[in-house]
């Protein structure tokens, strides 16, 4: 279990407990947090669960697998802090992880 902090583009904060093994994307969708669309359902086939992770946490996350950066090329305003939240698996180590949502996903 980890506490994940989702911050919408307008600054609104959502703090939820997410079970280990779920992804950061699923944590948002299951808790009705707006700002993450996840159109493809987590198969790394779209780029609508895009989030920004600031450096302090970015470096602690498991590295991107092949294909994630390719998908991020197709996201809305990606930058070097970008991740697909469907590819971040929650574990105790991620307690306190903060992700920022882009202005929009599509």
């Amino acid at each position, binding site marked *: 279990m980890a506490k994940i902090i989702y911050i919408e583009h307008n600054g609104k904060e959502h703090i939820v407990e997410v079970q280990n093994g779920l992804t950061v994307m699923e944590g948002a969708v299951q808790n009705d947090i707006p700002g993450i669309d996840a159109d493809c359902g987590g*198969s790394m086939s779209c780029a*609508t669960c895009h989030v920004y992770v600031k450096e302090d946490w970015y470096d602690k996350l498991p590295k991107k697998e092949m294909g994630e*950066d390719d998908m991020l*090329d*197709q996201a*809305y*305003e990606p930058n070097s802090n970008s991740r697909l939240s469907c590819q971040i698996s929650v574990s105790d180590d991620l307690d306190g992880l903060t992700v920022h949502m882009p202005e929009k996903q*599509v």
Partner: protein
Amino acid sequence: MIKTDVVIVGAGPTGLFCAHQLGIIGLKCEIVDNLDKIGGQCIELYPDKPIYDIPAVPECTGEELTNNLIEQIKPFKFNFHLNDRVQELTSKNEDWIVKTTNGKEFHTPNVVIAGGVGSFEPRKFPTKSAEKFDGTSVLYSIKDKTIFKDKSVAIFGGGDSALDWAIELSKNSKVSLIHRRDEFRGAPASIQKIKDLSKKNIINLFTKYSIKDVMGNGSLKEVEIKSESGESKILKADYVLGFFGLIMQLGPIAEWGLNLDKKVIPVNTENFETNKKGIFAIGDICTYPGKLKLILSGFHEGALAARGCFKYARPDEKYRFEFTTASNTIKDRLGVK
């Protein structure tokens, strides 16, 4: 004007199998899809990815599944209207009138929405100023490459479309290729070619840059690009092309009064009809208690929706349930003995 029993919106697996079921029970249908090919997400998003949960098919790719579904409905000779999108839905007497972006008009008692998460459309530049040049000098696809002859063209993107067009247009135009990172996701041969052309100064390559602004009065003159550290450059550009893949947009369906709840349409589970008589929704786009977004659920929903269509298409006939193994009528429809 085309008169038919059912218009299916969306040519993904769910729409295709629903068409099969309509054919089996003797109804006609027309299938509309915004993509230029049949198959929906299976063909656009994951043609090569294996699927493991199609009943009785241990493993198949999105492309194989699509090809088999196309094969399965071949006997019915249904029409596909690709590269077209349903735009408008109005009712007239007992019929629905469906109009498409390309100006087609269908009259039908039934519409089956099998639209998945929406229609695929190119992702556009986030830059507000790009909107006023949209379709004239800011483009997301190329119909006629001759317009770029002797012009300055700025191409954004890192996949095959961006690379292939950069290579092709560099023969007759001054091409700049701009991508947000150093790695490209295109074919290795294309990436090598881009690097060679860049070395020879035939293509101006800018990596770790993205679009900031487009400028021009009336016609486009320049594009401003920025690096993540905030450094910006201004490039001469008569045309700006963006190749960022496709996104899914629900589009006009959202305006049809179907009580949408977070981009999905509530239906009953008896025949998957919506709150409007003769409008059905199946597959990923529909919702009901216990809904699973699986292809197999879409097949089930399509089979029941097809029966739901029957009563409006053939109000004077009684629907008779038959098995494909036993019914001569069905075998005739399939053209088998």
